[in-house]
């Protein structure tokens, strides 16, 4: 009896302890760091030891490089320790969602630029301190693409590198189809006809897609920023309030071109090889649209000869889609002067010209500082040159809800391909859906 009573008591005690355990046992050292360096200006190195946390999604080459960079940064700043945490891309938003209510999470966080309005509107990121990052200087030093990250006249984050898109092609399949790899397609029509030659159908089934169209990968971006402009439209109004995909005949032409690749010219099959990159790696696709960030994967995984050619032009214009992952300082870090100072230092280090010079060869993304970009090393690289060539005409889309925006286009595309919906109507529907997202976003800002 006595033993049982003890057991019951023990169980009770365990529960009580579990319930009352402090939510943040690690708070103590941070607080002492803050109080011991109250007079330090944010730009000065903190006198006491301070630990900051950096989060990014898991991408092997990025994780390894950042690990190396942190070692170097800590050598330069012996008082700062950076804890580097990565999560699988699919879980990234789950982790952020779980950490915020718990009052934990990163001090410096790596986010897709398209998520910024959502994060900034919610008060997750703090504006970059003006004295450490003067806006005029930033806009002079960095390429214009980063200005899409400016919200309400302020910058909340800075990128190390930017990416844009190009055509990855399988050289073996390309030459086998009787095409000349030294003369890449210059227009989208030439690209489509090259794709037709590379497509293979056996027994009524497509076994090789000339160009695997995959809207859930990059081809929603291909439509929005590249095809719409190439056919004479402008995807959004300058103030980012109006979606104009269907505002010009060019918009409809661009949409029709994308649809026809599967519906009419039959160079793609929506189910072939799981997704675009997988199909391309398995040689089930001759070409695909992807970004410079894919160079590393292609180098390590492709078992065939391959190359990259620049994004072709349309009948009206030449354009490319640019994007970037960007490092911001969280409001959580900004509340603590010591952490803020350390985060500023780390952010300056991550976006320095020296870091960028290491970043591009290791990751494949292009440097975000104009001066680093001029380095002839990049222009002479046969794999980077096709990306660099169209960088001046690369546009980053303004997203208020990137996932919903993408889903709207995927649904519109599927409605036509799988359910024979009217292409024009499907584009109108997608435009309407996304317009509503924007209307709600701007209404919530007031």
């Amino acid at each position, binding site marked *: 009896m006595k033993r049982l009573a003890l057991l019951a*008591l023990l169980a009770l005690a365990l529960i009580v302890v579990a319930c009352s355990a402090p939510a943040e046992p690690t708070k103590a050292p941070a607080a002492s760091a803050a109080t011991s360096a109250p007079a330090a200006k944010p730009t000065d190195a903190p006198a006491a030891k301070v630990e900051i946390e950096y989060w990014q999604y898991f991408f092997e080459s990025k994780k390894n490089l950042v690990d190396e960079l942190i070692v170097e940064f800590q050598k330069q700043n012996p008082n700062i320790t950076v804890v580097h945490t990565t999560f699988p891309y699919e879980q990234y938003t789950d982790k952020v969602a779980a950490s915020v209510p718990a009052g934990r999470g990163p001090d410096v966080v790596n986010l897709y630029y398209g998520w910024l309005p959502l994060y900034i509107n919610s008060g997750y990121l703090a504006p970059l301190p003006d004295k450490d990052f003067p806006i005029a200087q930033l806009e002079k030093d960095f390429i214009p693409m980063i200005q899409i990250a400016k919200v309400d006249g302020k910058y909340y984050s800075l990128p190390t590198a930017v990416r844009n898109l190009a055509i990855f092609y399988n050289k073996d399949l390309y030459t086998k189809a009787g095409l000349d790899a030294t003369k890449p397609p210059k227009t989208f029509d030439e690209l489509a006809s090259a794709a037709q030659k590379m497509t293979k159908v056996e027994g009524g089934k497509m076994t090789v897609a000339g160009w695997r169209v995959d809207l859930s990968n990059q081809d929603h971006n291909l439509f929005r920023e590249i095809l719409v402009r190439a056919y004479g439209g402008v995807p959004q109004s300058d103030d980012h309030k109006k979606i104009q995909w269907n505002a010009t005949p060019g918009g409809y032409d661009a949409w029709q071109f994308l649809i026809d690749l599967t519906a009419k010219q039959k160079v793609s099959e929506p189910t072939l090889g799981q997704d675009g990159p997988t199909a391309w790696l398995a040689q089930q696709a001759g070409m695909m649209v992807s970004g410079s960030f894919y160079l590393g994967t292609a180098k390590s995984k492709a078992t065939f000869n391959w190359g990259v050619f620049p994004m072709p032009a349309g009948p009206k214009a030449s354009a490319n889609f640019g994007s970037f992952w960007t490092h911001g300082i969280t409001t959580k870090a900004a509340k603590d002067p010591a952490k803020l100072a350390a985060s500023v230092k780390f952010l300056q280090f991550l976006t320095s010209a020296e870091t960028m010079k290491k970043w591009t060869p290791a990751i494949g993304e292009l440097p975000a500082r104009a001066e680093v970009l001029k380095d002839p090393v990049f222009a002479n690289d046969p794999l980077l040159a096709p990306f660099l060539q169209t960088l001046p005409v690369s546009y980053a889309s303004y997203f208020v809800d990137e996932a919903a925006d993408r889903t709207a286009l995927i649904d519109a595309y599927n409605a036509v391909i799988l359910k024979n919906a009217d292409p024009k109507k499907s584009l109108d529907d997608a435009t309407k859906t996304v317009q509503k997202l924007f209307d709600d976003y701007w209404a919530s800002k007031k």
Partner: protein
Amino acid sequence: MAVRARGLSLGQRRAVWAYIFLIVPLLFFIGVRFAPTLFAMSVSLFKWDILSPTKPWLGLQNYETLFADKVFWKSLTNTLLYVVLSVPLELVFGLTFALLLQSAARWKGFFRALYFIPFVTSTVAISWVWRWMYEPTFGPLNKLLAFLSLPEQKYLANPDQALPSIVIAIAWQAVGFYIIIFLAGLEAIPADFYEAAKIDGAHAWDLFRHITLPLLNPTIVFLTVIGTINGIQVFTQVLNMSFQGTGGPLDATKSLVLFIYQQAFRSFKMGYASAGTVVLFGIILLITLIQLKVTTRRVEY
């Protein structure tokens, strides 16, 4: 705490001990089940954007938006379809195999284990294997159809076939569990009933129709309730098998739980997602009550 309290009778002491031991599971249920449920209900009344420090009061506005949301209705219809299609399939196959297994002369244990294996296998792994089987170009199912000169299908990529395709995978996995429960139910039927009926000249179908089926009623009720609740909560299979992993194509396979997940963890709208869970809770409660009322009527033979 009064350990070995004096002046209490043996019966009273026993009761005290019973309550002491009940406290532990009770605390568990209050802390881990009831409190979060009530919390979720309250969250649904706020604009609970997870990243935002302010959570303004909305009243019932989340519910209004929810009932006007086409995707919500689509996923609700899909969820009911998952239940209506999967439960009968599981019951029929579960009972058929249980009857066959019961009459199997040898290797009974082996077959039982064999049919039970899918149920204890990781759902994610099973989903992917089925996804590859359904693959239109290289998948074995289409290879088989081609061999039989039948028209090949798109399965998961076809908005009309995608949901039934997932239902088949769900039922395939669950059937092992149904078999085991049915077998237990069958074992519980006294053999005398069958002997007596046989002496009276009953045929196999009569035995099944008038003895087996009525006496299995409690088992069928139990399995229907469990199957329905599982069907309403379907998530993993849809996430892993659906075209592009988002409940597509065109939301044709999106279940209510996947819809809630996407609102909560993709769009960070916790309040809106909570409104969805409250509706889901209400539906499960209602269905369970109806099933218990309608199907547990005592029938005397």
